[in-house]
């Protein structure tokens, strides 16, 4: 081996503390990148492949009832490639393993073969035999949640009649990747069931023989979605069509897309920031490390090594550090990425969801860290190699210090010379101090960034479920009922208070833009529901007119005072004009809010409620629940606590893992930066410090000089880092603006405390490590040699 390479290996082993921490910074940056970006690309490509394979439809529409012959009208629409008509309706599943009955759908299958669109992925068993009543396929997530197997029977209330459905097979569907009821935004695999039955068996129960009430369409390449939807609406309108909608409004897909947008923001912006920060630090740290080798570089030059040979020497040094860090980061990132992808299968039901490690991704991560390191190290090495060897072999000229503003103000009179050393060092080396502070601040900022999503989720949870929704149980009716029905619920055991609410499914139309949504009607003296905006303020329901979610107003292009066309999507399908009287920047959903009386008046309907909100005595709930289940005309019974638990078990856990991983990386980076900073400072100052020791300063006293400087850097960096973190969080959140919910960028005090705490702990650990080195300072050696 060449001697110069031997020097390389020995340097590495001698600087192993620094080499390891720098390597870990690279590893953390690369791992964050690979994990997050990899998880996102894996989910995205799994979804696309799955949709393609199962022929997931582009347009969907529901209607009251149309004869089969209408299908050919739909097929002749320009841009339509394929039409799949079927029967679909809501069902209730009073399964024994649940306290409240599960809600769900029953969907028809053609009598022979598979549907043309939205094909099922059979996981177990087989398709139902045509002609066998009560045979059905069941949605895989529901089967798994209740340990249902092929051959089991499940009670299902189909069009008011309870039937015992026999499971012939278990299937996944591209329409239910995210298994949740249409109105839900939380995955609810226990409480959401889908059954598929042969059409000939199902049709009589719904009076749908030779008819359909649900249709899916696949577009020709390049077809206009809007034009096809408009044409479909024209065809289906006479048959009670409630408006065609595209993939982005399909219940499961909109959640999947929303999650993916969220993940994309987290999975592209955050890893970029991580990698960028790691690269920046690598650059700074390595350039300082090389500066410390000034005399060695001069000697190499003096004995005849050229600049390029010296440059190559340091390139090798960087490569060894950066490549081993990257290798560790890729391995760790692949492991965590597949674990996260695995976690997503908990609530995204794709078959064969696998983590893919894209070689392009890996090469980006590795090149970025290599490049940053090489630039930093080679720039320093070249700067030194450009000096004449004789000059470079002398110690660098004493750093120039002059009188500063603080001197002129006489501020130094009040502090001891040792403290002055700290202050002057900071004051006179603004660039070095500045870079160190920025480096540490970045580490702080990514810790803040790591926790922003979970903070926002916690906030959202609190706002929606503690402040906005005050009921314990939500009972939805199959059809709107009178206020008397709500009052009756109050007589059930354990029910303390009941309040009716009206929810009207509508289509908002304004200026050519339209949106399917709902208007919620609030009782005059309602106590249970409030609208809370992202600033956590209550927004009052206007006396007249409709209040819209701010995001919805933006989508529709309306502002306060505008008139809005509202088409009711149930009952007599009346169209009215409503004035937008206010906007609510609420975090959840896209909807309208009105006073119940105003709503009734606007649509000219009787006083009715579509759901009841109950406050219950939790001790009595075991008695309340069976009574509720027995009531006719009840579409669903949902305990608020169930939603919260469900949400916490899924999304919140996911966020926690996400945050935990990122926080771990961020903490690694923080320790790496602070420690290396301290080590470089020690090398640069060891001569001064040894002089002080010789003059009789105690160990504690010289430690104070060096560590005081570090402490100042850390303390300066924390507020800056928090500010950068908050800013980056905002930028990341802005990238993800899913229509379903808008996460407020509100960082909790714990996050700030956490970021500050970890950084200070990193500082403390580094200080202790450096302190150990200080105690072993070679007094004579330092004084005898020039460097």
């Amino acid at each position, binding site marked *: 081996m060449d001697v110069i390479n031997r020097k390389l290996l020995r340097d590495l082993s001698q600087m192993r503390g620094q080499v390891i921490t720098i390597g870990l910074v690279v590893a953390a940056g690369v791992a964050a990148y690979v994990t997050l970006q990899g998880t996102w690309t894996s989910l995205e490509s799994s979804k696309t492949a799955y949709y393609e394979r199962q022929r997931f439809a582009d347009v969907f529409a529901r209607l009251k009832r149309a004869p089969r012959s209408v299908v050919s009208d739909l097929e002749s629409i320009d841009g339509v490639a394929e039409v799949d008509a079927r029967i679909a309706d809501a069902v209730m599943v009073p399964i024994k393993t649940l306290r409240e009955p599960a809600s769900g759908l029953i969907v028809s299958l053609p009598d022979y073969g598979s549907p043309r669109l939205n094909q099922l992925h059979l996981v177990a068993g087989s398709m139902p035999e045509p002609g066998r009543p009560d045979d059905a396929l069941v949605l895989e997530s529901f089967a798994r949640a209740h340990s249902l197997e092929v051959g089991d029977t499940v009670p299902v209330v189909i069009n008011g009649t309870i039937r015992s459905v026999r499971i012939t097979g278990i299937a996944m569907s591209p329409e239910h990747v995210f298994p949740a009821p249409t109105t839900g935004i939380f995955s609810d695999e226990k409480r959401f069931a889908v059954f598929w039955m042969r059409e000939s068996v199902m049709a009589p129960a719904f009076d749908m023989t030779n008819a359909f009430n649900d249709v899916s369409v696949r577009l020709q390449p390049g077809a206009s979605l809007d034009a096809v939807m408009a044409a479909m609406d024209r065809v289906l309108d006479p048959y009670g069509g409630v408006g065609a909608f595209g993939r982005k409004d399909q219940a499961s897909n909109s959640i999947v897309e929303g999650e993916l947008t969220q993940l994309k923001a987290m999975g592209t912006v955050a890893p970029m920031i991580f990698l960028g920060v790691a690269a920046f630090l690598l650059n700074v740290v390595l350039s300082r490390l090389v500066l410390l080798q000034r005399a060695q570089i001069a000697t190499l030059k003096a004995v005849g090594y050229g600049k390029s040979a010296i440059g190559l020497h340091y390139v090798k040094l960087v490569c060894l550090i950066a490549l081993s860090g990257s290798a560790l980061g890729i391995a760790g990132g692949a492991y965590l990425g597949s674990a996260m992808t695995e976690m997503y299968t908990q609530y995204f039901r794709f078959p064969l969801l696998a983590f893919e490690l894209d070689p392009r991704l890996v090469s980006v991560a590795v090149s970025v860290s290599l490049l940053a390191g090489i630039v930093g190290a080679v720039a320093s090495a070249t700067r030194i190699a450009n000096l004449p060897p004789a000059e470079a072999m002398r110690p660098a*000229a*004493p*750093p*120039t*210090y*002059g*009188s500063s503003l603080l001197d002129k103000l006489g501020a*130094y009179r009040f502090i*001891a*010379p*040792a403290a*002055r*050393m700290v202050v*002057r*060092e900071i004051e*006179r080396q603004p660039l070095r101090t500045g870079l160190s502070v920025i480096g540490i601040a970045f580490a702080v900022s990514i810790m803040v960034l790591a926790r922003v999503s979970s903070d926002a989720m916690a906030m959202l949870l609190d706002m929606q479920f503690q402040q906005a929704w005050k009921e314990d149980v939500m009972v939805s009716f199959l059809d709107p009922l009178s206020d008397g029905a709500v009052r009756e619920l109050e007589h059930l055991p354990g029910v303390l208070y009941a309040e009716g609410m009206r929810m009207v499914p509508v289509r908002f139309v304004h200026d050519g833009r339209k949106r399917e949504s709902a208007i919620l009607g609030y009782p005059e003296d309602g106590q249970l529901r409030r609208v809370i905006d992202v600033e956590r303020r209550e927004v009052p329901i206007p006396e007249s007119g409709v209040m819209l979610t701010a995001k919805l107003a933006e989508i529709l292009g309306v502002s306060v005072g505008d008139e809005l066309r509202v088409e009711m999507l149930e009952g007599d399908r009346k169209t009215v004009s409503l004035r937008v009287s206010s906007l609510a920047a609420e975090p959840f959903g896209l909807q309208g809010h009105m006073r119940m009386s105003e709503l009734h008046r606007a649509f000219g309907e009787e006083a009715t409620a579509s759901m009841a909100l109950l406050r219950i005595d939790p001790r009595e709930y075991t008695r309340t629940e069976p009574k509720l289940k027995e009531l006719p005309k009840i579409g669903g019974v949902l305990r608020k606590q169930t939603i919260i638990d469900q949400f916490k078990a899924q999304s919140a856990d996911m966020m926690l893992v996400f945050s935990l991983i990122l926080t771990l990386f961020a903490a690694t980076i923080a320790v790496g930066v602070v420690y290396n900073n301290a080590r470089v400072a020690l090398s640069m100052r060891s*001569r*001064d410090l*040894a*002089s*002080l*020791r*010789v*003059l*009789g*300063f*105690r*160990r504690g*006293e010289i430690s104070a000089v060096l560590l005081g400087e570090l402490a100042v850097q850390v303390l300066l960096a924390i507020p800056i880092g928090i500010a950068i973190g908050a800013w980056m969080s905002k930028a990341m959140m802005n990238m993800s603006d899913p229509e379903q919910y808008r996460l407020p960028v509100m960082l909790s005090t714990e996050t700030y405390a956490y970021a500050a705490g970890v950084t200070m702990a990193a500082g403390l650990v580094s200080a202790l490590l450096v302190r150990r080195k200080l105690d072993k300072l070679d*007094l*004579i050696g330092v*004084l*005898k040699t*020039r460097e």
Partner: protein
Amino acid sequence: MTAADPAQSEEVVLSARELVKTYQMGEVKVHALRGVDMNLRSGEFLVLLGASGSGKSTLLNILGGLDTATSGTVVYRGQDLTKADDEELTEFRRAHVGFVFQFYNLIPSLTAEENVRLVADIADNPMSPVDALELVGLGPRKDHFPSQLSGGEQQRVAIARAVCKQPDVLLCDEPTGALDFRTGILVLETLERVNRELGTTTAVITHNVPIAQMANTVVELVDGQVSKVEHRETKLPASGLRW
């Protein structure tokens, strides 16, 4: 006139007996000191002569509490330094010893006065830093930073820093080694003045033979052993030295 003739003084400030120092350099044992006996008497100006590698720096470092001997004893006014631990050596240096080095070792971020004050702050009975700088002739330059001072001036700041705590012993390791002749003389005059006016016991090590002419006592070290001790009756003023 005992004070004016310190060579005759019987009060020994620092004494070394049978001092041995060996370093293990890989597989080779280096014998830096092989049984050195010497005394440093109160108020005297001692020059320790020797070629490079003769062990003179090692001896000075051990006398000043910067290093410990392998065997033998060092006694400072009855205190056995050989048995002192690191803490005790630090306290010894802090209270009693002033050092001057070839490469000045000033703190670049502190002005001349602040460099001196640095030591005054931790001393029990220091002289005023400004007085110390006046003593070395640098009163007017007290607000300058090391980078604004010449080598000779930096060395004189180092001397002011060493004497301001009024040490018992001033130990100087090649104080003129990095300086030209004229500046070197200036520094030696300063040391002479400190020794004369403050009565500080001073030991200077050098390989520069003519400097021995300004000493009360000259100790020559060859290959880790004392080869010659000379008590001089008459000493030349530093300004009279030539090399």
